[in-house]
């Protein structure tokens, strides 16, 4: 019955009826298309003009005509597009301000939720997203809203067109046979490339800052030591109660499933598959088996989760009942761990494959020449030599396993038990993040913030594992190069 709580019944909301008599609104997508069209015209005009000037001046152009075209197009497009972006974010506030100065807005409640609801109701009707008002108080505001929307839409459209045309005209007048259009266009291209590569840094900063910011708010309510060392996990909504945000059961569950059970499955099978495929298998077999193994890695985790919950968990519960294990549950750590291990097999196998292949052929040949059988060579020469690389791969696999979410959400259960019994139900950090954030509660409650604190812990641990693993792998590669 988990489903009942987080349900917003969107179906019951009235279908949007757009387009009955659509009033003038500031439609950013349409305007973007408009300036793209203008830019195309600018491109053609710039190219034609430069070609014409060149013909008149005797065929000597510094840049080829299409660079002049690009120059005009960029001057047309960029200022207008930037204005469009700014105006789209600013104009709703301007519109609301103007509506609030009209006489119809005087009867609004002063503050609070109702005021916002009435305003947004009137706005949706005025801008054609909704056929009729839902709140009667919003009805008199529809007309002022429509007027203000149209007013600012016209201002915005006019200013944008003016900017586009001014930019285009400026660039157009600068076209001369000796104008260095290519250099300028290329400078902008370089800027674009740099900006694209900055997105990665921005994302990293975004992750760190958003996790850190929300976590600090959480730690102002609950001490750090409680989250890291407390042994009771039972978060309640409302004000935080002492001893309910202890993370140890979650951390233990994560380690039990991701680092112990999953690895007990994945390491032996993955290693042995890699050894067999690199050392024994015929090339034809290898060509077929490797992609099949990779399918295992490509199956979505939600499918694994469903498989674990539907097939593996009930089977394990029956086994446990036969063995007489107490507390056997259908949501067992073992089911989630085994299925997660299966998912990780191709990962471990391909990392081991790479490391074994990186061992110099001379070492293998030397061992075989001394009379060792292939299996002795593998066990006593190749694997010890490849061990650092394999260890790095295993650390990466662990980092992936503890960050895995859907399998544990669906198969491992949500009750925080501190138990070593693999047939019992345990929960993990990721499963709790999902549990804390799905369900209806306000964003500021300790429960919601706790999810971000758990996220921060998870992020730091996986980051550490990745850095250590990458360093080991790198060092190991250098040793043989």
């Amino acid at each position, binding site marked *: 019955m988990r489903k009942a709580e987080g349900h917003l019944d969107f*179906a019951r909301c009235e279908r949007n009826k757009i387009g009955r008599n659509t009033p003038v609104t500031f439609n950013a997508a349409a305007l973007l298309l408009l300036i793209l069209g203008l830019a195309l015209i600018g491109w053609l005009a710039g190219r034609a003009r430069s070609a014409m000037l060149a013909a008149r001046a005797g065929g000597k152009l510094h840049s080829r005509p299409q660079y002049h075209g690009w120059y005009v197009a960029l001057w047309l497009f960029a200022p207008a597009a930037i204005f469009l972006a700014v105006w789209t974010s600013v104009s709703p506030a301007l519109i609301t301000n103007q509506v609030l100065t009209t006489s119809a807005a005087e009867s609004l409640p002063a503050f609070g939720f109702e005021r916002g609801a009435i305003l947004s109701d009137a706005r949706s009707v005025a801008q054609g997203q909704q056929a009729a008002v839902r709140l009667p108080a919003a009805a008199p505001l529809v007309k002022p809203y429509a007027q203000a929307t149209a007013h600012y839409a016209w201002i915005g459209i006019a200013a944008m067109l003016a900017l586009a045309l001014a930019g285009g005209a400026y660039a157009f007048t600068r076209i001369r046979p000796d104008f260095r259009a290519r250099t300028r266009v*290329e400078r902008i291209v370089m800027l674009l490339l740099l900006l694209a590569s900055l997105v990665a840094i921005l994302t990293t900063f975004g992750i760190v800052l958003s996790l850190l910011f929300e976590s600090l708010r959480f730690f102002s309510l609950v001490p750090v030591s409680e989250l890291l060392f407390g042994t009771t996990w039972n978060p309640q909504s409302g004000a935080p109660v002492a001893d309910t945000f202890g993370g140890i059961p979650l951390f233990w569950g994560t380690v039990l499933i991701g680092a112990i059970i999953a690895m007990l499955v994945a390491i032996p099978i993955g290693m*042995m*598959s890699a050894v067999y495929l690199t050392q024994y298998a015929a090339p034809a077999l290898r060509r077929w088996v490797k992609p099949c193994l990779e399918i*295992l890695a490509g199956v979505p985790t939600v*499918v694994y989760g469903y498989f674990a919950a539907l097939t593996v968990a009930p089977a394990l519960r029956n086994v446990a009942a036969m063995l007489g294990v107490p507390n056997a549950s259908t949501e067992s750590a073992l089911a989630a761990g085994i299925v997660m291990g*299966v998912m990780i097999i191709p990962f471990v196998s391909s990392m081991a494959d790479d490391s074994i292949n990186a061992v110099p052929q001379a070492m293998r040949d030397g061992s075989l020449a001394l009379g060792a059988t292939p299996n002795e060579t593998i066990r006593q020469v190749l694997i010890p030599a490849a061990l650092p690389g394999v260890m790095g791969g295993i650390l990466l696999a662990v980092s992936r396993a503890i960050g895995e979410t859907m399998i544990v959400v669906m198969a491992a259960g949500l009750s925080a038990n501190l138990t070593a019994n693999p047939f019992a139900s345990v929960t993990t950090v990721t499963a709790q*993040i999902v549990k804390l954030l799905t369900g209806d509660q306000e964003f500021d409650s300790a429960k919601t913030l706790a999810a971000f604190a758990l996220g921060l812990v998870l992020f730091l641990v*996986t980051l550490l594992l990745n850095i250590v693993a990458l360093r080991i792998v790198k060092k190991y590669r250098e040793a043989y190069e």
Partner: protein
Amino acid sequence: MQSRIARRYAAERRFKALGLGAVLLSGLFLAFLLFVMVGNGARGFTYTHVAVPIDFEATPLTIDASRLDDPDADQLIANAGLSDIVAFAADEALGDGGSALISENAWKEVRSAIKADPNLLIGKSTFELPASSAIDIAAKEGAKGELGARVAALKANGRLSTGIHWPFFRNADATDPAVAGIWGALKGSVLTIVIAFLIAFPTGVLAALYLEEYAPRNRWTDLIEVSINNLAAVPSIIFGLLALAVFINWFGLCQASALVGGLTLALMTMPVIVIAARNAIKAVPPSIRDAALGVGASPVQVVFHHVLPLALPGILTGTIIGMARALGETAPLLLIGMRAFIGDVPNGICAPSTVLPMQIFLWSDEVDRGFVEKTSAAIIVLLIVLLSMNALAIYLRNRFEKRW
């Protein structure tokens, strides 16, 4: 000596068998997984229908036939009491409790049929109505007791028929397995992936070009490289937290929409695309760059006229694989509200929508047993889409990739 060699050879054979066993075991897991899903899911594409004659002479539907084309015709027919008429007809035709044997949404099928052909309102005609979930399961799997007897009687009368269930491909989510479908989720998935691709592909390729071709070696580019490599290994759920904090709470973008979902998946796949693109760019031999520079191309021309076209097949392969992974992703989308029940096919990028893996997750939680096979059927659809994407990537790699 001889016996020792024999022992060592025996160990060798055991070891080799162990290796083969490991490979076979993983293959077996895959086969078992697919077998279970196909075994359960194949039935999800079909549904049992009950033939019910409805006599509109005896129980007339009082409605103005000229208004059947109105936009609110659905509401009009519902208000005219069609559901009662259908229930009555079912009781008449199938005996006591007959209306419980057909789906509670069966009258909506009658409604669409009437809208398509108003002549049905005159006289008596037989409709193939979807059975209730319990009957459907009993008809497919067999059942004992009263239900089994009921199904056997219906079968003997020739009233039951099982066929491909088109509403499964046409409808969005519903609480009744008889009308629940994957079209809404499929469309949401397509919208989400298109947005993710439109953002992640250009950004990723441009970033890779910069890092591989132009970036000076300094602390900043090191920082960019480290963050890209780390982002590729960050658990996906962390991206969900980022999207919740930034896109929804800070920017106030539309919750549970394909837009936010696409942005989240774009951030997640961008590092994958960058890494794949860098490898593809690295594989283009330097002689090509030198030759282009030698005949007077500018550095930007070298890259955009020569390096990028040559690296494109490799980049596309990596991108398709990254997109396939994004398509199967559920965890980050759970956090941005795509978990909600959505009974409508999304009609825009800002409309609340869901995606196929999320639909699988939601159905797997349903209590109604009819959803078990629907879940597996949705999984089959998802796996087919993903496998064909991967096959396309492999085809592209084999067809276009050059070895220098």
